């Protein structure tokens, strides 16, 4: 099977994809984008969180074929230059990274949260990130990182994003097939 889609603003084609492959395996095994992680492959841990047409999804719950003709943004698409995205910078500075296996998913989920809610309360942070498991940090420094990123995120229109990220629509009921995190 062949899948053509836009990933991080670039047109990409995955060749010889097994029909049963998830979007996560297409990204990891065919497009050399291993930033999205394979911790549970069951939609429980959020380590593979990506945007599909602007909606936050677990890539492990999306069939690869569903990405045909659509726009995907992964953690690798957040920093467009050598300069880290404010969310990435905040995770680093706050000490929210230990083993780091959950970090890509949390960075993407935090990006989604702050795009929707620029100044979230602690409870809004907890609710938004409840689908992302971290086994190392106990989450305190992740909450710190989200607050720090909220202070530093530029206004929405000037987010340094590519492709799908430029016009992030709010999630719609029933949109996008499987894998929606909310």
């Amino acid at each position, binding site marked *: 099977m062949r899948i053509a889609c836009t990933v991080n603003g670039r047109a990409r084609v995955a060749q010889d994809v097994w029909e049963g492959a998830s979007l996560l395996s297409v990204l990891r095994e065919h497009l050399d984008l291993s930033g999205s992680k394979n911790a549970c492959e069951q939609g429980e841990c959020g380590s593979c969180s990506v945007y599909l047409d602007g909606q936050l999804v677990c890539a492990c719950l999306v069939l690869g074929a569903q990405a045909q003709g659509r726009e995907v943004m992964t953690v*690798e698409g957040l920093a467009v230059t050598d300069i880290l995205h404010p969310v990435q910078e905040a995770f680093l500075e706050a000490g929210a990274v230990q083993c*780091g*296996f959950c970090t890509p998913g949390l960075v993407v989920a935090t990006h989604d949260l702050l795009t929707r809610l620029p100044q979230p309360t602690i409870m809004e942070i907890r609710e938004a990130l409840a689908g992302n498991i971290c086994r*190392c*940090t*106990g989450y305190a420094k992740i909450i710190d990182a989200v607050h720090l990123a909220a202070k530093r995120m530029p206004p929405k229109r000037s987010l340094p994003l590519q492709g799908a990220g430029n016009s992030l629509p709010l999630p719609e009921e029933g949109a996008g097939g499987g894998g929606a995190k909310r």
Partner: protein
Amino acid sequence: MKPRLAAHAAVSGRVGDSPRRADGPQKVRGEFPYSSDLSVDGMLWGSTVRSPHPYARIVAIDATEALAMPGVLAVLTHQDVPGSKVYGLEIQDQPVLAIDLVRYWGEAVALVAADHPERARRAAEKVFVDYEVLKPLTDPELALTDAAPLLHAGGNITRLVKIRRGDQSARADMVVSGEFEIGMQDQAPLGPESGLAVPDGAGGVDLYLATQWLHVDRDQLAEILALPPQKVRLTMAGVGGAFGAREDLSMQAHACMLALHTGRPVKMSYSRPESFVGHVHRHPGKLKYEHGATRDGKLVYVKARVLLDGGAYASSSTAVIANACCFAVGPYECPNATIDGWVVYTNNPPCGAMRGFGSVQNCYAHEAQMDRLAAALGMDPVELRRLNAMRTGSHLITGQTVEGPAPVAELLDRVKKMPLPPPLDAGRLDLTQMPGGVSNTTHGEGVRRGVGYAVGFKNVGYSEGFDDYSTATVRLFVVSGRPRAEVHTAAAEVGQGLVTVQAQIAGTELGVSDVVVLEADTQVGSAGSSSASRQTYITGGAVKAACEAVRDRVLVLARSELGRSAAARLEGDAIVSAAGEVIITLGTLLGDEVIEETREFRPRRTRRLDPETGQSDAHLQYAFAAHRAVVDVDTELGLVKVVELATAQDVGRAINPQAVEGQLEGGAAQGLGLAVMEEIQIKDGVIRNASFTDYLIPTILDMPPLRMDVLELGDPHSPYGLKGVGEPPTISSGPAIVAAIRAATGRPITRVPVRPHDIVST
């Protein structure tokens, strides 16, 4: 052929700073190459055939159909193991691939290599194994009796530890007793067991993997593969958490066997369900205690019987049971003790190392007992603990004198003095703050608040005479006119921040602001494992020693170049006088010269426990922490919300304060998990919840705020005065939560994790 590996950023922080992690930029970008991310052209994928029975005899293995499938290149069984067919950290009892028997559900029986992961997985299903199913031994109590089948030639008792201290027939005015049960916890590191084996074409192999100890893997692999150690080269890839789960071999030997057999690179990466059988777990335990005390609360004696279920193979069980016994009484002075601890073989999943390593199980028991004793005496539970608190100069029940700071009473005082969270506001309903949360299970009716305390301790470093050392090579040279230090060790960065800490130590000792830590591999001497809270102490000590040797040579060079011998030190990329004036920059002094030194660091030796009395100087250092927990319990539905945790811990010296806090926070989360959420459910030897859907790990909604008080009291024997940090947060956090649940409900609660029916059953 080499996969892309991590590139650590240079670090410029000093000891006591919290510089950004050397591996951080790659991690936040999603560019850090974990062991499951590795790939090279033409690689094959390995898959494992696993036993569907906890105990069975293998009658025959038929791989004909699997081998005939397209894309399948090899199917291997125990007959293909080139060297030693068994391995193990302490006792070589575990088959690389099952030989005649399988002893646990999920045991590896055969291997498949294919050109696609899905083909490998499907071919594994077509390897037909004919089993004669046997009745599994799943009750550790039964394992102690003659009625049990003999699972290993040496008997079913892996180790019996006896500790006899003081008067064995001591009596006391006040006696309390209790029996406690601990469930099996999974380390659940997010990164799966994975790696890439690349044959070198000359009979050797390179393995890129995630492990806690490269050299112990290397030595075991050399025996299994029948190769000299220099032909088995290991390099650390990114490690997605460990917590004890990566001390034993998982896919290492299998990937190397497939690679050497096919002559092609082979990658293996476990799924989450496979990971649950791919590593050992925390030992479940049954603990029976009797405490005797005077009427004014001084401990007279403790008697304990500890039984840990080691599962099918020994792993590190012999060391875990030693800890469970040595620290059975907790950090208290107790003149008389009688402790018997068994760890036994069963057909349950193998158990071994997990953060806390034997001190977690016993802390639930000794802290519950201290609360019972306080209640029986009508004393405040914290006051009773203070009264019996261990201090510098106290003796363990093994007879060893406690040297260095032992601030048990102070830690308790500190957590007790921290402000309490406000009470539940009955006038303002906020479901998110209720047990059961937005499930809308209560509006406050039946909700009771409880506060509980616990304190615990354990050993830092290896015990009982095990040779504890680490090796570091440090190189100082000039790049573009500025000095750079390179640090090379085999120490495993598992997330704790060790790479950054090594750089901070080198930066401090050499006074340079550009320190790069090379990737860990077996081209340098052993670092020992990233376990036992030991790496900052032991590998940190090795890096410090190697830097001191480099510094000595730099100063000798400076004296010979400058012709004077003024007292001087290295600071700010230069040699400076005692008054702080720059004598010469390192760039000028070194020029093209490269100064390299390698040092091993060994702390003082420890000794074996006496087999009859357990009396011995068996341990190197102790780390202490205390916790206070505040919980709200829906006493009608049995739901628990942990409202707040507070902790105080002596870390000796915080080499990296931010990383220390991360250990305290993350360790408390794993303690909370065992207390109220996490248990591997086993029925007749079969794991029933091998997924993150069914095995519940604390989420950001489950983890309450944590108040922290970090003490830096300085150990006179360790580098910079530091103490191991990683494990104490996981020891007393859970027992404090269970104490708080008891306080809220008035129920004895003798089993963890606490389940709703433990709270509501009549």
